[in-house]
């Protein structure tokens, strides 16, 4: 489904990586490894279509993503280093609106449900700015429960999460993979996915 062909990335006068090739099938997870600054975030942003590779092509279901445009975006959920939440809106408003903007209009009940799953049911109506670092992260990740797109691209989703929350996310990933979804992710923490084939991509 998702293919990277001879990808290369240049930042400033530094070549971060080149000749990266991979092919990820439905139900597969790709973990991108590498020390700090090896280009993991840069690679993930390319895979989303947010930036263009210095060389090489990215294919989705056999078509180059740059020619797919909007259609490709409809298939991707990206959660990056930044959480994409509005400080002034409440937790539940944030979730409803960010889902709607991603093309999934949901009812307040559905949102409540998702937040409950993420352990935020008591904070539902607080503005995000008063939340703790880990709680903000959970609000961002709650989108995974709602945006049922085939491809998830997650940049260090586990940062700032406590042990409970890490388990939750692990469960979510397994479920998504079982339903034939694809996941590309990076993390410096250990994560064990046993139910699906895991591909390791090592940078630098």
């Amino acid at each position: 489904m998702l293919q990277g062909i001879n990808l290369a990335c240049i930042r400033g006068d530094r070549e971060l990586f080149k000749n990266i090739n991979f092919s990820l099938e439905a139900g597969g997870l790709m973990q991108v490894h590498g020390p700090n600054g090896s280009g993991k975030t840069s690679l993930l942003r390319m895979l989303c279509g947010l930036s263009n590779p210095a060389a090489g092509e990215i294919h989705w279901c056999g078509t180059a993503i740059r020619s797919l445009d909007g259609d490709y975006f409809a298939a991707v959920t990206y959660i990056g280093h930044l959480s994409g939440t509005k400080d002034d809106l409440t937790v539940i408003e944030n979730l409803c609106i960010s889902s709607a903007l991603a093309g999934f209009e949901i009812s307040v009940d559905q949102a409540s449900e998702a937040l409950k799953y993420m352990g935020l049911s008591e904070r539902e109506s607080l503005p995000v700015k008063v939340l703790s670092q880990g709680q903000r992260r959970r609000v961002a990740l709650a989108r995974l429960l709602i945006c049922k797109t085939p491809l998830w691209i997650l940049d260090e989703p586990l940062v700032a999460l406590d042990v409970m929350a890490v388990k939750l996310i692990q469960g979510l990933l397994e479920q998504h993979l079982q339903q034939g979804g694809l996941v590309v992710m990076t993390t410096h923490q250990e994560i064990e996915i046993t139910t699906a084939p895991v591909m390791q991509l090592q940078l630098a």
Partner: protein
Amino acid sequence: MFGWIIKRDLLLAMRRQSDVLTTLFFFIIVVSLFPLSVGPEMNMLRTMAPGVVWVAALLASMLSLGRMFSNDYLDGTLEQMLLSPQSLSLLVLGKALAHWLVTGVPLVLMAPILGIQYDLPAEALYVLTTTLLLGTPVLSLIGSIGAALTLGLRGGGVLVSLLVLPLYIPVLIFGAGAVEANMAGVGFNAHLSLIGAFLLVSLVFAPWATASSLRVSLE
């Protein structure tokens, strides 16, 4: 989608009512500063009035441009919008419209009262309000391009003014000109139709230009 964006931005504005109010008060205060620095002679003030009100409206609208995208940018929402399957131009149009509703409309409503402070005659007040009504959406639309281009550049707040003010000048000239024409007893319809034309043109092109700028800024 379009609806959601507007709804969200208005919600945000309501949550921070101060945003709406402060743009408005900025407008009021700037207009009130001029008599303080120029002196209280009414004749002089009356001649200056259309220019001052228009410049103040323009500055007020411009100052709030910073908020149009930058908050969304800083917290990553904008990234998500770019990844949304809907047309980005439409999204941007929604944001510009919301910006106008939040900043432009209050200015239009306030202008007649400020005009009274400068002792403008009733008909001139009416013309002033009409030109502002037609002109402020143009300011929001053109401004969105500047806001998108300067995104993420620290100090963008002032840079945006540099980019945007020259583009605002035609609107300013014809807006203030219409009122002056009216006060001088000349017809002002030509002025109005020109501003209308600006509005149409910017409605068509600005969202598209803004959308492309956003893509560039986030690359």
